[in-house]
C-alpha cells in the first residue's frame, strides 16, 4: 500500500500529463465551437462568441425527438442488461458448473466483436425472421452489448463479496428469498448501479449497432451523424454534444464513487 508513495519521475509525469491533454483538447474544441458565432463552417479561430445556440438547440423539435428516443432506448436496454447481466453473473459466481467459461465468453463476445458484426448479424436475423425495424429492434441490439458491463461489475462484486455472507444469513434463519432481499441485493446494489450507468452511457452513444438495427427513427447519435454530414446549424450539434458530455459526466462520477469504496464496504468484514 504505502510502498510506492515516493513521487514519480518527471518523464513519467510529462508522459501522463501529455496523454491526458491529448484526450481532452479535442473535447475542449467541441465546447469552444458550441459558442462560435460562425454558423456555416468551422472557422479557426472562431470569429466571435455567443450563447444563442443553446436557445436554438432548445427550440429544435428534432433534438428533443432524438433525445427522447435515445433515453427510452438506453433505459430499456439498461434494464434488460441489468436483469440478464446480474443473472449470468450470479450463476457464474455461485458455482463451478460445466460451461461456465462458455458463459463468460458468450457475454464478452458482443463487446469483443466489432459493433458492425453485431449490427449486421442482428439485421440479417431480423430480415430472415421478418421482424420490422422499430425501437425494439434497437433495444435488442443495445441490450446485447450492454449485458457485459453489468455482468463485469456484478461478477467483480460477487467475487469480492464473501460467500459466507449468504451462509451467515441462512444460518441466522433467512430463507433464500430473504437472503436475496436483505443481503445479496444490498451488497451488489452499488455495483449494479455503476454497471447500469455504464450500460446506459454505452447505449446512449452507440452509432454503429443502431445504424444497423434501427429503421427510420433516429437516436441522438444518429441525429448527430446526419447533422454533422448535412448540417443545418453546425454549432447546434456542438451544443448538444457538449450538453451530453456534461450530462454523462454526472453518472460517471456517481459510478466512480459508488464502486470506489468497494474493497472496504463489500469485503467480508475482516
Amino acid at each position, binding site marked *: 500500500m504505502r510502498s510506492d508513495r515516493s513521487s514519480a519521475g518527471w518523464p513519467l509525469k510529462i508522459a501522463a500529463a501529455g496523454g491526458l491533454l491529448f484526450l481532452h483538447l479535442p473535447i475542449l474544441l467541441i465546447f469552444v465551437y458550441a459558442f462560435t458565432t460562425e454558423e*456555416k463552417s468551422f472557422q479557426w479561430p472562431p470569429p466571435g462568441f455567443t450563447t444563442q445556440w443553446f436557445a436554438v438547440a432548445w427550440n429544435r423539435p428534432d433534438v428533443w425527438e432524438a433525445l427522447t428516443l435515445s433515453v427510452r432506448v438506453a433505459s430499456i436496454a439498461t434494464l434488460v442488461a441489468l436483469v440478464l447481466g446480474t443473472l449470468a453473473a450470479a450463476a457464474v459466481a455461485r458455482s463451478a458448473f460445466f460451461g461456465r467459461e462458455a458463459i463468460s465468453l458468450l457475454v464478452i463476445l458482443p463487446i469483443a466483436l466489432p459493433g458492425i458484426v453485431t449490427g449486421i448479424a442482428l439485421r440479417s436475423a431480423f430480415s430472415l425472421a421478418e421482424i420490422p425495424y422499430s425501437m425494439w429492434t434497437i433495444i435488442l441490439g443495445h441490450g446485447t452489448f450492454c449485458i457485459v458491463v453489468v455482468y463485469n461489475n456484478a461478477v467483480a462484486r460477487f467475487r469480492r463479496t464473501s460467500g459466507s455472507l449468504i451462509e451467515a444469513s441462512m444460518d441466522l434463519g433467512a430463507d433464500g428469498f430473504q437472503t436475496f432481499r436483505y443481503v445479496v441485493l444490498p451488497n451488489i446494489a452499488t455495483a449494479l448501479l455503476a454497471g447500469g450507468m455504464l450500460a446506459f452511457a454505452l447505449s446512449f452513444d452507440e452509432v454503429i449497432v443502431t445504424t444497423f438495427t434501427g429503421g427510420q427513427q433516429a437516436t441522438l447519435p444518429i441525429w448527430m451523424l446526419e447533422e454533422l454530414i448535412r448540417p443545418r446549424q453546425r454549432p447546434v450539434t456542438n451544443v448538444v454534444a457538449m450538453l451530453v458530455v456534461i450530462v454523462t459526466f454526472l453518472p460517471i462520477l456517481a459510478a466512480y464513487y459508488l464502486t470506489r469504496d468497494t474493497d472496504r464496504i463489500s469485503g467480508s468484514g475482516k
Partner: protein
Amino acid sequence: QEPLKELGKGEGALSIVAWAGYIERGETDKNYDWVTKFEQETGCKVTVKTAATSDEMVALMNEGGFDLVTASGDASLRLVAGKRVQPINTDLIPSWKTLDERLQNAPWHTVGGTHYGTPYVWGPNVLMYNTEAFKDQPPKSWNVVFEEMTLPDGKSNKGRVQAYDGPIYIADAALYLMAHKPELGIKDPYELNEDQYKAALDLLRGQRQLVGRYWHDAMIQIDDFKNEGVVASGSWPFQVNLMKAEGAKIDSTFPEEGTTGWADTTMLHVDSEHPNCAYMWMEHSLSAKVQGDVAAWFGAVPSVPAACKGNELLTDEGCATNGFDNFEKISFWRTPVSKCESQGECVPYHRWVSDYIGVIGGR
C-alpha cells in the same frame, strides 16, 4: 402487378428515398419548401431518407419500408428488373400531360411501354472549380481532373481535385476517352468492351494519384472544397449553387467533352403502404411550382417546361443555365449490362463496382 385503378383517400404518411436536396421543407432556407404545403393539403406526413449513391437507393428499396424513390437511370432499371417498383397509372396523374416530351417515354422508366414512375428533374454532372485557382481561365476540359497539370495559380492539381466515389464514375472516364482516344471506338460510356473498359480504368488509376479523397456525399464535397483545398471536381449543380450562395469563390462549367448526367424518376415501391399519398406526391411533384423550386434549389432542369417561366426562385434564365438545351449532349446514368446494344458483349455493372473499389484502393 396491376397499377392502381383509382385514387383513394391519403393514408396519412409517405416515406421517400431521395437525393440530398431533392425534398426540402425549408429547414436550410425557408424559401425552399415544397413539403409543408403538401402535408397540409393531403394530410400525408412526409419522411425523407437521403441516399448518397444509386447503389444505396437500390439497397434501401430492396430492404423495403419506403413508398417512393427518386431513382437515377443507373438504378431505375435495376429496380424494375428486381420487381421492387410497380407500374403506375398515368391517368391518375393529371400533370403527366405537361411533361417534357423528351422525357415522357424515356427508356430509364419505360419498359415495354409501361411506365414505372414520373420523371422528377434532370441535369448534368458539371465541372465545379475554384475561381481563385483558375483565375480568369475557367477550365474547358475534364483534363483538369484526369491529367496532372499546373493550374493557372501556378500550383499542381495534384491532391487538389476530386472524383465521385461511385462505380458509375467509370463512365465519366469513358466519356473523356471517347473524345480523346477515338481509336478505342467508345460509342456509349455505359457500354464498354474489355479493351475500352481497361483503358477507362487505366485513366482512373492515373487519376488516383491526383485525388486525395473521393467525394461521396454532396455536403462532404462542399466541406472538402472549403477546408481541404480541393479546387476542381465533377459535381452537381446543387453544390455549386449552395457554395455560391455562401459567397465561396466557386463556379461551374460544361466541358467540351460533354458530361454525364442524371435524369431521375419518382418510382413507387411494389409493397408501398401509402400508394394514395404516393400518387398525390407524384402529381404534386410535377406541378410547375415544385418543379421550378426543385430545379432552382438543386441546379437541375425541370421535367415540366412550364416551370421554366415565371418561377421566382429559378428565374427565367434558370432553365438555360442549368442545361435545358444540352439534353442531347448529356450521357444520362444507366446501369451497364453485359448484353449491350452498341456492341456484342460489355462489362457488366458488378465488375464496375469491385474494380472501382480496387482503383480507389490503389490497385
